[in-house]
């Protein structure tokens, strides 16, 4: 692995090296700024306060639940896009990726208009079942899933397109049903793509702010996730905001790095 990367970097044109390093610095220096500005002396006290723990726990729970929801809905959707032979597939794919580029606040407003108490679907949920999603933890999960699902769908669809369909055909000729083929042949062959998409999806859900605060509001212990806590802390005590940001950064980096190394790095 390391031998191969050295040989490729040796062939890198020097013209590209400078912009590459500048790009790296551009992405890393703001994070270094967080580390430098952090109030290290008072950090432990601030870190272990009940509020921080509450927001972090809620963030982790909601991001994980949103990711599970995305897996349940997103993997079949990716399969439909890659293998379904749908008419107008490129248009459908464009719509699937819209939440990626949509300002998250717009996504939150759209969710309110559909799933809110007065929304198209939400008003029936409210009158028939007494379910109201805004201002609930479930609302946070829905908002995060809305924004994060495209990451999963795109990754899984890419993996499905790259996978060799002949194995599926072979399974079919050997008498396996479609469901069995999907579970025993298709899914294992695209596992790295699914894991990569899951990690991205989880990380995006963890950092989600705009759609969450618009759709689910902000209430400690119920809907206040870490990004919301950071934003509000900035209003009164920027030091606390820095501490919260550090925690979020640490969690994200640890998860992204460990999962990538273990699953994707090994398999690719």
């Amino acid at each position, binding site marked *: 692995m390391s031998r191969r990367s050295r040989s490729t970097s040796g062939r890198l044109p020097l013209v590209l090296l400078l912009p590459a390093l500048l790009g790296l610095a551009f992405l890393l220096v703001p994070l270094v700024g967080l580390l430098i500005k952090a109030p290290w002396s008072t950090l432990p006290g601030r870190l272990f306060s009940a509020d921080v723990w509450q927001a972090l726990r809620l963030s982790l729970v909601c991001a994980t639940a949103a990711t599970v929801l995305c897996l349940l809905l997103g993997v079949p959707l990716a399969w439909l896009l890659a293998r379904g032979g749908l008419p107008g597939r490129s248009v459908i794919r464009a719509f699937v990726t819209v939440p990626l580029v949509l300002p998250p606040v717009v996504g939150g407003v759209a969710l*309110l*208009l559909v799933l*809110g*108490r*007065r929304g198209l679907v939400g008003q029936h949920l409210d009158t028939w079942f007494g379910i109201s999603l*805004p*201002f609930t933890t479930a609302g946070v999960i829905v908002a995060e899933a809305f924004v994060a699902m495209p990451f999963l769908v795109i990754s899984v669809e890419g993996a499905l397109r790259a996978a060799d369909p002949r194995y599926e055909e072979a399974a079919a000729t050997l008498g396996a049903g479609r469901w069995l083929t999907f579970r025993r042949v298709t899914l294992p062959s695209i596992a790295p793509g699914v894991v990569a998409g899951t990690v991205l999806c989880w990380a995006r859900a963890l950092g989600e702010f705009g759609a969450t*605060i*618009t759709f689910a*509001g*902000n*209430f*400690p212990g119920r*809907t*206040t996730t870490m990004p*919301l806590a950071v*934003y*509000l*802390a*900035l*209003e*009164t005590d*920027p030091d606390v905001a820095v501490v919260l940001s550090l925690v979020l950064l640490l969690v994200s980096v640890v998860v992204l790095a460990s999962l990538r190394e273990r699953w994707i790095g090994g398999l690719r």
Partner: protein
Amino acid sequence: MFRRTAFAALAAVAALALAGCGDDTPAASSPSNSTSALSGTVNVFAAASLTGTFTQLGKDFEAAHSGVKVTFNFAGSSALAQQINSGAPADVFASAAPKNMDDVTDKGTPTNFVKNTLEIAVPKGNPGKITGIKDFADKDKKIAICAAQVPCGAAAAKVFTAVGITPQPDSLEQDVKAALTKVSLGEVDAALVYKTDVLSAKDKVEGIEFPESSKAVNEYPIATLTKAPNPDGAKAFVDYVLSDKGKAVLTAAGFDAP
């Protein structure tokens, strides 16, 4: 040529200032006197709640002073204060709270120019049957108030203390406009916002006044900044806001005179 006009303008301003002694009217309240001396762009950093009125005032000001352009940066007062302290090129700062004005290190002498009072906003038709501030302690009603960290939340907290109730909010919004949105979409039965916000959304929300709102009146200070790139423009704009014409625009939007 330019020097002569500038001198003439200065003389005019000085004369006006002398004439205005012992009189509350700001020197440049009649804009025609300083027209020729102003040029360039005036960068105004103003609290989000001033968006509607200041946009109007900016247009009027530009019409009165040809050759001057007013650009606005509307955001939460604390965010604006941070931007100014970080060196953003601002000429004028209008804050929704004296605290945020105090945070700015290079301000001139701030003047309180308007007051804003809290009001209960309910969706059109008042579906939640809200009757007064006491309903904010009712667990069964869906309520939004501002988070305590932002000015409208601090004001709300004062009101609840004055009334002697513990509010039961479903959401602590990050700014007053977000609270207003939740009302205009009908997602909450009531929210505590400013009188000006109720007026700005009057086709979608209704306002309920309550006597205890006088316990949490919010003062808005405005100041020219000492590091202003365009000090003359900054002063003229502040004077325009404080003038009778400026006051008329602000009171029409629901602000009270200080």
